[in-house]
């Protein structure tokens, strides 16, 4: 997994790539909670993400909950393939604000 960070409109945009699993999901969790702790709106970019397991999904769920409590925006951008199927399987597509592409923001 690789995480890089840019700014897009009002969001801190996290570009995720590769695979997120039990071995590295804690890095994602700490990054997300750190951004939210700093009061940032977060856009999690799935465009280059090949795989995310339940521990990665749990990090997103926890972070989204924190964002809601702090009235911060938290959106997932460009989920396709296996990551989208995981979000569908867990019915989280109806929980997370999902955005197909950045033109919709």
């Amino acid at each position, binding site marked *: 997994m690789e995480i890089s960070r840019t700014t897009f409109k009002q969001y801190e945009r996290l570009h995720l790539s590769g695979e997120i*699993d*039990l071995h590295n*999901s*804690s890095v994602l*969790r700490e990054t997300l909670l750190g951004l939210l702790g700093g009061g940032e709106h977060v856009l999690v970019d799935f465009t280059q993400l090949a*795989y995310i*397991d*339940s*521990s990665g*999904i*749990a*990090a997103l*769920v*926890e972070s989204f909950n924190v964002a809601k409590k702090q009235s911060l925006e938290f959106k997932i951008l460009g989920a396709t393939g*296996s990551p989208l*199927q*995981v979000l*569908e*399987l*867990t*019915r989280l597509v109806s929980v997370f604000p999902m955005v197909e592409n950045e033109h919709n923001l």
Partner: protein
Amino acid sequence: MNAHYGDRQVLHNVNFSVAEGEIMVVMGGSGSGKSTLLKHLLGLQKPSSGSISLLNQNIAELGRKQMMALRRSMGVAFQGGALLSSMSVGDNVKLPLRENTELDENTIDIMARLKLELMNLAGFEDLMPAELSGGMLKRAGLARAVIMDPKILFFDEPSAGLDPVTSVELDELILQLRAALNMTMVIVTHELESAFKIADRITVLFDGEVAAMGTVEEIKNSSDVRIQNLINRKPRDKVVDADAYLQRLTAGGT
């Protein structure tokens, strides 16, 4: 591989491979060797000859630590759920994560609830196993088996003891798990309807031998009388060896 219980050979030249992301269903009647095969695949018993490779590792050559590492990539859902009776459902499901990872407890809680939601067991995490029905125990066992998103899932008789609606839902769930997580699955069952719905390929065992292996259509169209009898639920023809029968009745033995 071959397997024996004492002098009695129970698996004869069983040979098959399962591709990544494939669902292989192992079918056969009672006493066909399905459970014995599963025990060998899990490394609980060693073949008397031959070898078994999981994720490109010959399990006979693995030491205890290596086998434990391999088992972290495997999930096993036992027929009756096999939950620890002294722990709540939630703690049972979380156990593999607590034992094998250093994930934050918040992450573990959410992962367990995600899996319980998938199994339609939301809100049951604080109950004890004794308070669940047979179908719920099976689903809780499956939640625990997939809590670490294993690369390979072994599932013993997923549909046994379930009502038809729950059984169909479980079949759907198995297919969704494979689609979303690309899990490789070896599923032992004697439920034809379920096998035909979920299998990419089916291995049919008879008397410890592979009688047939192929896609659902190939198995359905098999010319093997034993397989057609299995599909059409006809009893096996019992050929009587008069001398052997008399010997068994008068002197015992097999």
